[in-house]
């Protein structure tokens, strides 16, 4: 039995039998993940389209711990943290989503190209993918952002550049194995064009995989964004969860013991990303065939008592 490759999620890459079985995906995990993501999306929209205000600078009430008036306390300038959290939701989520979408688009296309072509194109693309995986991600991103300048749009592109190669790798492997399938070879022999094979045979198999890597990409994108914002590369104009953590660090929240400045944005990021991972894990269980395992205990089956067994 050939070694089965686990994916970055801890799922299993069963490129040999991509049977789509949505029934297996259902369960409390999926429900929780979707509910969480939907709620945060709602909050983000509220923060974006309702003109909320964290309050003016109130020097008398800096570093106030959580209270009835300020549910999550105040920051170093007396502004309400809870309000900032809501306002910060939109930039935090939209960048992650867009970056992941772009990464998956690029990665998916390159992966399909590389996986489907046989000769030098595949080789070249593989080398390019390898380079992006080997380069230290954050410094690389910093260089690009430092050069291009701050801004949400630039950040989306930078993160997408970092993430596309992982999707490409996975899609390439899938397409490669799919291409050698008997029905594809038969279709080609019957005269089907490459395009036809790509659209009707290869793509449908690659799509579920793109779904899982896409969810993973969103998670990674949000994390990378938080890191970039931590270093101030997103510009000071944007208020997001990542920049809230940055401000907390820079403005000595630690020295003042103001954990309420640091904990909430981090927890929000944590929750959203966990939900993304759970979503991806559920998608992956739907994708993969049930793998048998051997129970290692000496006696692992159920035995009925003798009296019931007798006739």
């Amino acid at each position: 039995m050939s070694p089965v490759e686990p994916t970055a999620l801890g799922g299993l890459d069963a490129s040999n039998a991509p049977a789509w079985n949505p029934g297996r995906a259902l369960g409390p995990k999926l429900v929780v993940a979707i509910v969480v993501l939907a709620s945060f999306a709602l909050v983000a929209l509220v923060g974006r389209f309702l003109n909320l205000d964290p309050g003016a600078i109130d020097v008398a009430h800096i570093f106030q711990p959580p209270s009835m008036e300020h549910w999550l306390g105040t920051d170093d300038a007396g502004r309400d943290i809870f309000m900032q959290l809501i306002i910060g939701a939109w930039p935090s989520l939209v960048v992650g989503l867009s970056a992941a979408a772009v990464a998956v688009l690029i990665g998916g296309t390159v992966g399909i190209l590389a996986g489907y072509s046989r000769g030098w194109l595949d080789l070249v693309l593989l080398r390019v993918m390898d380079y992006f995986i080997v380069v230290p991600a954050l410094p690389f991103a910093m260089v690009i952002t430092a050069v291009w300048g701050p801004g949400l749009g630039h950040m989306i592109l930078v993160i997408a550049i970092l993430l596309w190669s992982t999707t490409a790798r996975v899609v390439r492997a899938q397409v490669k194995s799919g291409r050698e399938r008997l029905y594809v070879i038969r279709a080609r022999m019957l005269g089907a064009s490459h395009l036809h094979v790509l659209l009707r045979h290869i793509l449908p198999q690659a799509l579920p995989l793109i779904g899982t890597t896409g969810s993973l990409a969103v998670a990674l994108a949000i994390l990378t964004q938080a890191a970039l914002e931590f270093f101030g590369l997103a510009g000071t104009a944007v208020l997001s969860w990542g920049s809230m953590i940055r401000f907390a660090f820079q403005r000595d929240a630690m020295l003042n013991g103001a954990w309420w400045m640091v904990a909430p944005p981090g927890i929000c990021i944590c929750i959203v990303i966990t939900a993304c991972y759970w979503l991806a894990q559920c998608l992956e269980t739907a994708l993969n065939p049930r793998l048998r395992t051997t129970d290692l205990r000496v006696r692992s089956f159920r035995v009925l008592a003798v009296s019931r067994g007798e006739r």
Partner: protein
Amino acid sequence: MALVEVEDLNVWMAADGRSVHAVKDANLTLEAGGQHAIVGESGSGKSTVLLALMGLLPPNATVSGKVFVDGVDVLRGSEAALAALRWRTASMVFQSSSNPFNPVRTVRSQIVAALRLHGRGKAEAERRARDLFDMVRLPSECLGYYQHQLSGGMRQRAAIALALACQPKLLLADEPTTALDPIVQAEIIGLILSLRRELDLALILVSHDLALVGHLEGSLSVMLRGETVEQGPVREVMAAPRHEHLRSLIAALPDFALASASSEVPA
């Protein structure tokens, strides 16, 4: 008490919310040195019976009845007794498509490990591994090979060597020749049968191929969807099939199969 005593064995397997009655009221008695064959198609439950004999059924299995091997209560006895039973009293040769050896270690290391688990010293184990390979007619340099470097037939020979390592009293063979080509099939079956005689083992052979087992010594049972539809000495069962299923199986045999089967198969 006979070596193997199976009484009213029933196995239910749970899968996808449903319960399948995999084995219905199976009975079997086998003396030491005896031979029994179980014939049936896929899904007839024949392999399940074998697994039940060594207590290897999976967690989704529910079992009732009695299974005693060499006096050990497989179903309800102590776990220590069951663990001690494995490989020392009863061992198994799996289907030829399976890969029972650790893929990242040499074949020798697995055989030696099994021997040392059951009490042999290191030097003794190495010696015995070589003897075993002689017994199954494999060159001893194959001991240093990895499983994937052996052909199907060679792998089965090695698996037989592994199964016989601790000198069991009972050998269970689960479709040992399926997926091998005909000449190799004959060799492997011949090997198993001659080793059985040489070492005075009890043998339970499971197969879907009636031509293979229809001429053997000992007893035969035919299974259909979990039920044992025929059981008795091989000659009697083959001569006078009581159930429609066996009749059609016999009718489906090519004429030469049974005729040539009575001659000795080369070992």
